[in-house]
C-alpha cells in the first residue's frame, strides 16, 4: 500500500503518536551524530510536540486507541476561553500544549507539582518554544552545535518526563 493511502486510511491514534515521537527522536540523534544540526533540531521539536500532546490527551482520559484529531477541536475551544492569547499555530505550538496541560490540570484540581510545572516551563515554555517552530521545515536555517545540544537536552527532559506530566 502506498504511504499516502496507508496514512489516510485510518485516523491516527495516540499509539501512532507515541511510536512517531520515538522515531523522530531516533532520527534526530542520528542527525546530531552526523553534525546535521538543523535537521536534528527540527525532529527534536516534533518529538516534543508529540509528547506534550500525549501528556495532555492522556491526562484527559484518552487511551492509546483514541483518535488524535478528535481532541484538537476541544483543546482549541477550551484554550479560547482560558488562554485566548496563546495561539495554537495549527496545533504545533509548544507553548499552547504546555499551557493547556498546566491549566487543565489546575482546573481539574490535580495541578502539576510546583517542581514539575517549573521544570516544564523552563525546558519548554522558556527555551524550546523560543528555539523551535514548525515553520522551520520551510526555512533554510543555520543551527550551531551548541544550540542543537541544548535543544537535545531539553527534548531529553520531555522524553523522560512526559509520563509524569499526565499521571
Amino acid at each position, binding site marked *: 500500500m502506498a504511504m499516502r493511502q496507508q496514512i489516510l486510511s485510518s485516523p491516527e491514534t495516540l499509539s501512532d503518536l507515541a511510536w512517531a515521537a520515538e522515531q523522530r527522536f531516533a532520527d534526530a540523534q542520528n542527525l546530531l551524530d552526523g553534525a546535521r544540526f538543523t535537521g536534528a533540531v527540527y525532529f527534536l521539536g516534533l518529538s516534543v510536540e508529540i509528547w506534550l500532546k500525549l501528556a495532555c490527551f492522556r491526562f484527559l482520559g484518552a487511551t492509546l486507541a483514541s483518535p488524535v*484529531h*478528535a*481532541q*484538537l*477541536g*476541544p483543546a482549541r*475551544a477550551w484554550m479560547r*476561553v482560558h488562554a485566548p492569547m496563546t495561539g495554537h499555530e495549527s*496545533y504545533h505550538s509548544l507553548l499552547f500544549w504546555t499551557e493547556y496541560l498546566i491549566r487543565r490540570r489546575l482546573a481539574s484540581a490535580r495541578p502539576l507539582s510546583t517542581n514539575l510545572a517549573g521544570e516544564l516551563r523552563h525546558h519548554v515554555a522558556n527555551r524550546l518554544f523560543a528555539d523551535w517552530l514548525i515553520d522551520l521545515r520551510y526555512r533554510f536555517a543555520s543551527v550551531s552545535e551548541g544550540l542543537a545540544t541544548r535543544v537535545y537536552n531539553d527534548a531529553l527532559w520531555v522524553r523522560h518526563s512526559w509520563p509524569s506530566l499526565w499521571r
Partner: protein
Amino acid sequence: MPVREYKPGRTAQYDELVRELAAEWAQSRGSEPVIYEERDRQGKLMHVYVVWSRWHDVDRAQRSEIIMDAAQKRLPESEWLNITIAMGLEPDEARHLGLGQ
C-alpha cells in the same frame, strides 16, 4: 481613504456546517447528521461523535472544530467545555468503527 485591517474568516462552508449542526443539536430535523453524546458516570458530557455525509470534503481536525463551535452555540459552557473528544465521521467511517450498530 482610511486603511482598514482585513481578517479573512472561516470559509462559508465552515460557517454553514456549524450553523446546520447547531440547528440539528437544537432540534432534530432529518436523518443526518446523527449526534452521539457519550457521558461519564456522573452524567457529564465527555465525547461527541457526529455522523454526517457532509464531512466528505472536510479534514478531520476541522470536523472537530466545527463540532465544538456548534456545541458552543447550543450547550451551556459547563457542558461544552467538558468535551474532550469531538469526532466527525462519514457514515462509512462510522460503520467501520461500529458506531451506532
